[in-house]
């Protein structure tokens, strides 16, 4: 994972959008569920389960970062707009700077996880489409 420290001024909340991804994850969850009609080998099942876990964890991490962002924004504004006693100002500014650096590093990691998830989901998307087509073909044959 990258460890790029950004300047505090560069802090932006740039978390990956979850739109579309969640829909695919729902599909995968349904594939895992009993009675889905998909016959999966144990290794396939394990890989899908791990991917579902990864997406859940990614969402959870993004949630915590989102929470932190709001606090940091307010603190930054207060420190910018108001004068602070020197002894406190140095401490608070340093603490804010450190937290923002840490924030940026974690955000980079989440974005890298997302790249992995998107790639893995794309592989499954093709497989799922093929499976759907096969199912449609089968049901048409049965009719």
């Amino acid at each position, binding site marked *: 994972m990258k460890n790029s420290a950004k300047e505090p001024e560069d802090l932006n909340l740039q978390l990956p959008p979850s739109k579309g991804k969640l829909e695919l994850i729902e599909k995968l969850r349904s594939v895992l569920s009993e009675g889905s009609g998909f016959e999966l080998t144990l*290794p396939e099942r394990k890989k899908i389960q791990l991917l579902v876990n990864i997406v859940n964890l990614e969402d959870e991490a993004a949630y915590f*970062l989102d929470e932190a962002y709001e606090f940091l924004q307010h603190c930054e504004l*207060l420190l910018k707009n*108001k*004068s602070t006693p020197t002894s406190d100002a140095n401490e608070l500014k340093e603490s804010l700077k450190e937290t923002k650096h840490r924030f940026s590093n974690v955000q980079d990691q989440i974005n890298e996880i997302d790249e992995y998830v998107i790639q893995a989901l794309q592989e499954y998307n093709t497989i799922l489409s093929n499976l759907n087509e096969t199912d449609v073909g089968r049901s048409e044959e049965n009719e």
Partner: protein
Amino acid sequence: MRFYRQQSPINTHMDSDQVNLVRESIQVARLDVEEAANVTDLAINQIRQREIHKSKEGLLEKLRKRTRGS
């Protein structure tokens, strides 16, 4: 004579309550960031596990081919 109430200047100085509020808020943000980092580590661990599974499958497939070929 009309009496004009003197407007108080905009308070641009941070009092001790505000200093404490900012300090506490940074601590909360830090905790959230660390929580995000912990969860991210778990996700990375799951990615590693998944990659191990994938490479195991590939290796097993190679072994099966070799066994069939021999």
